């Protein structure tokens, strides 16, 4: 039961951060486009915007992975202690 609650919390966390990330990316786009298109042109602008979005997704995946792996390690360690008791 405890493992399931933990997994549900991870799913909810991932969902909230995914929505927050999407809002952040698309809210910052108009500002970025208006700033960049003047100085670097539309093609480079697309590359820069895509690059930034990819970096944000990579950071998000890293946080997601670390959270889940740490949770798993702790759950397993708790179980090992239970077993040895």
């Amino acid at each position, binding site marked *: 039961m*405890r*493992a*399931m609650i933990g997994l549900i919390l991870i799913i909810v966390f991932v969902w909230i951060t995914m929505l927050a990330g999407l809002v952040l990316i698309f*809210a910052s786009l108009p500002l970025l486009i208006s700033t960049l298109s003047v100085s670097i042109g539309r093609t480079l602008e697309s590359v820069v915007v895509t690059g930034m979005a990819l970096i944000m997704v990579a950071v998000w995946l890293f946080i997601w992975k670390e959270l889940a*792996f740490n949770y798993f390690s702790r759950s*397993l360690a708790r*179980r090992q202690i239970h077993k040895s008791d």
Partner: protein
Amino acid sequence: MLGWILSAICALIVSFAVTFLLVPIVSRFMRRHSIVGADVHKPDRPLIPEMCGVAVVLGVTVSTLIVWLFHTQYVVRIAVFVVATVVAAIVGALDRLTKIGPRLKPVLIALGAAPILILAVYVPYPSFPFIGGTRLTIIYPILIPIALAVTANSVNMLDVFNGSMSGTCSVAVSAIIICMFIRGSVEAASLAAGLLGGLLAFHLYNRHPARVFAGDVGSLYVGAAIGVLAILGRVEVATVTAMMPQVMNAFYGLAAVGRLYERKEISTRPVKMLSDGRLEANTDSRAPITLARMILAGGPLREYEITRHMVSLSVVSATLAVITQLLTV
């Protein structure tokens, strides 16, 4: 709207009936030709017919004919759905018979995106929650082949326990249908209803104790079908949310191993069987971290209990998917 609801119900019933009738026939054929695999999570490791997902492929494809009969003007979109998904099924069959390998498989599945791109049945203006419509004319077509490969492989990687693939995908597809009706993508909802019918019929045979296995044919087909439906129905974010357990499982496995892998390549299994038939998380650090191993971190469980937990997680994701669609302007 009533016509679409009627066609969706007909597609669901036809797909369910065809799949239900075909599974025993396909199963006998596979057993006769020794296309069987050991059910490794049972103490006596019984041999179960593989590649029975062919019945789902046929059942769903027949149901698309029903949708076409109701709405002939959507013939291109229906044909694209059939071609793109059958490509994934063929890749699955080839992998079972010739061993394509974990790196080439996603590339071949991505080829299924060709009809979507060539016939331009996608709309590169996806809607996101709180933001509304966006314009992704350059990125969107690039993401389509990736989306197909990701969804197909994610579903394939969760097809590890009796009923886990059919159970979790049935819940996800149900949520996707609701999201499509909210979005107004009724033609895609009818096609999705056909997929749901096939999955439900197959689940009756695949649930614990399994009498048939879907094989890569079935799991890659179902995954690719979900990916294509997300694009046709314009419910991309809701689909990602509904498929959270599948995506989590695939991502954790890839992150732990560090590359694309086949289950057979992994020498240290993520779960091990106890003498009483229950399954336990492997404590060996070399074992990949999978969703099953995370569920089992809390203690040993029977196989059907793990599947039940996976389906429960799918229900949570499905609920979040519907909320996501409601939040989408």
